[in-house]
């Protein structure tokens, strides 16, 4: 487990480091501190971390540019910032958590718990998915996503306009970020329930889902029961 801390205040960086090590104490975790954004981005280029703790001055010139880059990346980002008025925006962009300064152990551990436990979902209203194409980051509205298909370490976003976009985050990471309306129907599919036409039962206890777009997706057997219970 690689955890990167970008924080220019030595005292706060040490605090984050200490608490991180304490939380992940029973797991082999490598924690790195970079004391400037520039150094941090350089570091990421070489070693992709599993989790980024980022002190981002979102009021600065390029705070949101950096944020877009980070949320498009294949790892989760937790913002640790003094600009608490920007928390909602940060969540909309798809950060895993926003820890307002000053923070104590409990609050930071809550964020880490969310990271290690996929069942704990963020309720903070992600609105966009940032995708990187040809070095450019674009924001895609969550409402435009029909379903997400896992493709190895990447995911494919299938959009209402019929287009597809690749996202660097894995299915598991995205599922943690997506809001309640998205349901995992198969190990490879995460569907926007608003786009479902009906569930089809095929011969041989095989299930599938007809979408409003006309596409048919497979539904896992265990997932079917779950969905049925939910809709009943």
């Amino acid at each position: 487990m690689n955890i990167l801390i970008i924080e220019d205040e030595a005292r706060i960086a040490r605090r984050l480091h200490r608490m991180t090590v304490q939380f992940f104490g029973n797991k082999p975790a490598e924690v790195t501190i970079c004391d400037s954004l520039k150094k941090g981005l350089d570091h990421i280029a070489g070693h992709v971390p599993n989790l980024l703790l980022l002190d981002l001055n979102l009021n600065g010139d390029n705070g949101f540019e950096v944020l877009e880059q980070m949320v498009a990346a294949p790892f989760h980002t937790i913002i640790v910032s003094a600009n608490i008025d920007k928390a909602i925006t940060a969540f909309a962009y798809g950060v895993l958590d926003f820890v307002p300064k000053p923070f104590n152990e409990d609050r930071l551990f809550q964020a880490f718990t969310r990271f290690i436990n996929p069942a704990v979902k963020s309720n903070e209203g992600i609105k966009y998915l940032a995708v990187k194409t040809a070095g450019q980051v674009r924001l895609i509205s969550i409402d435009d996503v029909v379903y997400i298909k896992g493709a190895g370490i990447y995911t494919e976003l299938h959009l209402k306009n019929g287009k597809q976009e690749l996202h660097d985050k894995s299915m598991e990471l995205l599922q943690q970020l997506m809001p309640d309306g998205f349901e995992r129907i198969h190990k490879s599919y995460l569907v926007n329930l608003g786009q479902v036409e009906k569930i089809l039962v095929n011969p041989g206890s095989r299930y599938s889902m007809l979408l409003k777009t006309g596409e048919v997706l497979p539904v896992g057997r265990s997932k079917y029961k779950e969905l049925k219970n939910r809709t009943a």
Partner: protein
Amino acid sequence: MHNLLLLLMLLGWLDQPIIRNNEPNPVYRVGDNPAWATKNYADGDWSPHRGNTADRIFWSRTQLDLREVKKELLPLGLQIESFGAFEVYWDGVLIGKNGQVPNNGKLEIPGTENSYYPIPDSLTKAGPHTVALRSSQSFLPGVQRSIGFGIYNYAAMISRPLVTMSYMNIMAGAFLTAALYYFFLYLNSSRRQADILVFSTICLLFFATLVMEYLKFHVVIPYSQFFIRLEIIGWLTFANALLVPWYFIIQFNFRKGTWLMSILLLSLLLLYVINYRHYDLTARLYSLAMLVAAFIVVAKGTMQREKGGFIVLAGLLSSALVNNYIVYDYGLFISFTIIVLCMLYLHSIRTSFIEAEHQNAVVLSSRLKLELLKKNIQPHFLRNTLTSMMDWVEESPKEGSRFIQALAAEFDIMNEISEMTLIPIGKELELCRQHLSVMGFRKEINYSFETINIDEAQLIPPAIIHTLLENGITHSAPLPGNTVKFILLYTLTKEMHSYIFQTIAENQQHLSNRTGGNGFKYIRARLTESYGANWAFDSSATGKGWQSTIQIYRR
């Protein structure tokens, strides 16, 4: 406008004179003979020149050719403009006296220059008539002035000066009010502006000119004192001819004002000398010189795009036209009124400009005050400080309490200076040291702050060195040994106070270029607030770190 109407009316009325011969020429004879009063006395051998009559009695006879007069115009009156004391005989009939000619060894009682006499209706038939004056001119006997005659409806003639004066007094009252108002304004203004005083003086002088001009209508001035009034009017016009261009020089920021004023003064003096005793001509030339000088200033001002330039230029042009085409008496006053209106207009522009400037200054000051207060409660500072503080308290309560004290001390100083626009540099340095102490706890960098040649008594705007320090902390990485050093160097020269603030450290690399941002804006705004345009600020990277220079010019 009323004046203009009145004037045109008067001019129209004067256009049809009752006396038909254009320039009646008097003939003179020294001596005294009652027969010389008769209408048809043969005066062919009399002289067209009076000569120096000393204190002797002399007679003058003048033929006036009257046109047919409508009944409505009766009774007629005779207006005589002449020096001396005299008895007036109209076709041999005594119709009035002006002063008293020497009589039985009694000295002459001087008459007044302008006098009016009713003419008996029976003697106003069309055709030639004779005005014979039995005169003396014991005072100013050498002054040769022709005798002016006018015949009008008697009632109109007597009341005309009153009508004229009533209009002129309205104008004079307006000028007096303006003079007093602007004088009080000048007295009670915190910034005593020369232009206001000049304007007030112009109004007062013009009021005096008007009063002097029409004094003749309500004070009987003996002809022996006649020139005193003209002399006074001349000098009043002289003064105004200087002051009006001066006012425009101030208003339009005319650069070579001293030169222009010197040339103008010389020209006016020259005009005075050359045309000595030609009062009306001199006054006319004075106002011409004034118009020329004012025109130069205003034209230049218009080219410099000074506010109100065009309107004043138009005003001056119309003023010149009026001055040129209307009889002097009225022309001068109307043209002058136009100029003063221009000045009032300029003044109102200027006042509203100053008002807006003042408003801006007030807004700026309160904005800066807020910005200063915000420095310590803006989230980036406060929340990072609190986070570090939490850590210190948890790890080392003793150090934590020192940290809290340092922060409290910084807050105290901020609070103390937040209302001020200038503070002693000593206070500013204290603030900087407290800030460094706080930041030392946060960043765990060894900050040092060296001051060189500081004069503790000097005043500077609050928190500008503090802002430079903040920038230095934010944008610097420590040198090997975990140190960042700041140096403040003060130098005083004849021209300026100069503060050089150096950061000796590694400059942080940034994703985007440093533009200076809000901190520099704050510094510039503070310098403007206290020093107007008399400052310079510069900030740039050096080989050793960063250097900012603040220069405050001494006036």
